[in-house]
């Protein structure tokens, strides 16, 4: 089962490789990982999408906590968070296909951010499942290039991660 975890870390030298080493060394999966500084001085936030049963997930949580640079692990498996991902998609678009691409873009409320006579480049944002869905529809038209950011997630409600 897929899980999304947010990890609040010290913005220290080597922290990304500590987390990556932990996952690879213990055979945990990383489906996606994104990291950037937060509003709080000296802290970064990682969002990791991983897979495993309840026992594996518990170990991932505990092992992350064991890293000295990790302040907080937020496990969003119970749908308590809003998740978003962005994709930049370059798709072949000539003749009839051009209209088809525009229709799909419209339905998914995506944006065209670059145009050539032979292609469109699309920016799509949403839940990762939505990104999967738009890709599914665009794929038969000929994907030339795809970049996905990986998920980012934030808890629902008024409270911040530390209250």
């Amino acid at each position, binding site marked *: 089962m897929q899980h999304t975890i947010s990890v609040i*870390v010290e913005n220290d*030298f*080597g922290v990304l*490789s500590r987390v990556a080493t932990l996952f690879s060394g213990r055979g945990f999966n990383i489906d996606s990982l994104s990291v950037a500084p937060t509003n709080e001085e000296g802290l970064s936030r990682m969002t990791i999408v991983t897979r495993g049963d309840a*026992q594996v997930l518990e170990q991932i949580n505990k092992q992350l906590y*064991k890293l*000295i640079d990790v302040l907080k692990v937020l496990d969003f498996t119970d749908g308590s968070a809003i998740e978003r991902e962005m994709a930049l998609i370059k798709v072949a678009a000539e003749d009839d296909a051009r209209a088809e691409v525009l229709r799909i873009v419209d339905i998914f409320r995506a944006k065209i951010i670059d145009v050539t006579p032979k292609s469109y480049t699309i920016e799509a944002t949403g839940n990762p499942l939505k990104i999967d869905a738009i890709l599914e529809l665009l794929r038969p038209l000929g994907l030339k290039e795809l970049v996905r950011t990986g998920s980012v997630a934030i808890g629902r409600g008024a409270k911040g991660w530390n209250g």
Partner: protein
Amino acid sequence: MKMNGARIMLECLKKEGVDTIFGYPGGTVINLYDELYSFKEIHHILPRHEQAGTHAADGYARATGRVGVALATSGPGATNTVTAIATAYMDSIPMVIITGQVPTPLIGNDAFQEVDIIGITRPCTKHSFLIRNVKDIALTMKKAFYIARSGRPGPVLVDFPKDVQMAMGEFHYPETVEIRGYKPNLSGHPRQVEKAVAMILDSRRPVLYVGGGAVLGEAAEALTTLARTLSVPVTTTLMGLGAFPECDDLSLGMLGMHGAYCANMAMTHSDLIIAVGARFDDRVTGKLSTFAPHAKIIHIDVDPTSIKKNVRVDLPIVGDVQDVLQKMLIQADKNSEKVAAFIETTATWHADITGWKEKHPLSYHQSSTIIKPQYVIEKLRELSDEDAIISTDVGQHQMWTAQFFKFNKPRTLLTSGGLGTMGFGLPAAMGAQAAFPNRQVITICGDGGVQMNIQEMATLVQNRLPVKIVILNNNFLGMVRQWQELFFDRRYSSTCMELPIDYIKLADAYGAKGFVANKTDEVESVILAGFKEDGPVIMDFRIAREEKVLPMVPAGASLNEMVLNA
């Protein structure tokens, strides 16, 4: 007062109470060595190899409970420490390893003797630091020592570039330290403690299963009192030996692959296992699916990741093991009537255990001519001082020591359990002897592993460290040979050492004394002669070459499927 970074580092060590360090000089630590030259408060011991120096710091830490400190230059000096760091990491030993590094402007340029030692050791350190600025030295060292010794202890590496050692700065050592991502949970939850005691009083076939955490957490006394108060039998892992006196009737000895029959049977038939600072390692559990099939499990550990890593747990208690055991004791004392009734109901359990003990005690066939290794261990036990510190190397001799020496006090057995590092025994003994110049320190080695750090004979002689080196010499890599005998049709591929070594001459070459025993009736006199020497000694016992360590649970078999005699 301004001083250079190298001096600040030494002042930090002094503030941490460090009296002895083990280090090897080189280009990127030459400034540190220059300061050491006139810094009298710290005793520096020069090993003959950085691996051995780092094992010695580890042995010092295991014997004292304090943080061991090792020092090495950048590049090859640093990489030579890696095996010893991994050894300490696997056994949760508190250490600080300081490595020189090329000047900060050169980092990343493949400079001479540059290596990314932080990257190399990331998976085998509790944490690591690169000091980039002279003003960060004191806080970094404060953090390094705090992290190394607190919670579940472990090695911390500090990479210290040469330019930072040369830069001038003020020295202020922080009184306290606060690391926002690191707050070990030391205090066991009172409700969990209550539940644990209730579960014990409800059980009929309880066993205390004790690991190295009980030694590291200074919990031997609390454990012993609790076990005796509740009359619960105790088995320990290799790392737990000494946490509970093996001379006590409640002791089952060591469990696991080469554990005692009664210990493995007790685990298999138990209805409640109370794990104390142990981690259900595969050498202990045997086949997981058949491990302790009838037992509920209480797991007490300071490291939450140890809990539920390998086995299901019915009641986890995260906390310092000493704290938790003391709280359990108070709780038991509050229920003294129930405790008395409980002890009565466990009578049949104790009878079962006595039956197993009598049915298959640890034993061997004595010979009047050929020296049996187990006999040497028994004689060592008999003739050594009561507070002697024993280190072992890795192999058959290590298991015979664990089985036959009978450890009664914590920190008297120093052994590489988790990593199983050959070459550990001699340098670890060296570190322990440096910490306790007046105690008897004995290292028990095989003829394979003793060669892996034999150069330390020079360090022993030079520093007047009178370690007694016992070699159980079978002229084989015995433990591997045993596996080849049992599981590979006696195809002794590369396990015969072929070339016998004259250890008397070898000892002599280093200015030490050597003795050899070839027959059973020479064992006692060689031990006595060796113990009588004031300096380091090698005692070479030519033992029965194909003796096996038994009982044995074959890898992947269930604990109750022990091979008792093969």
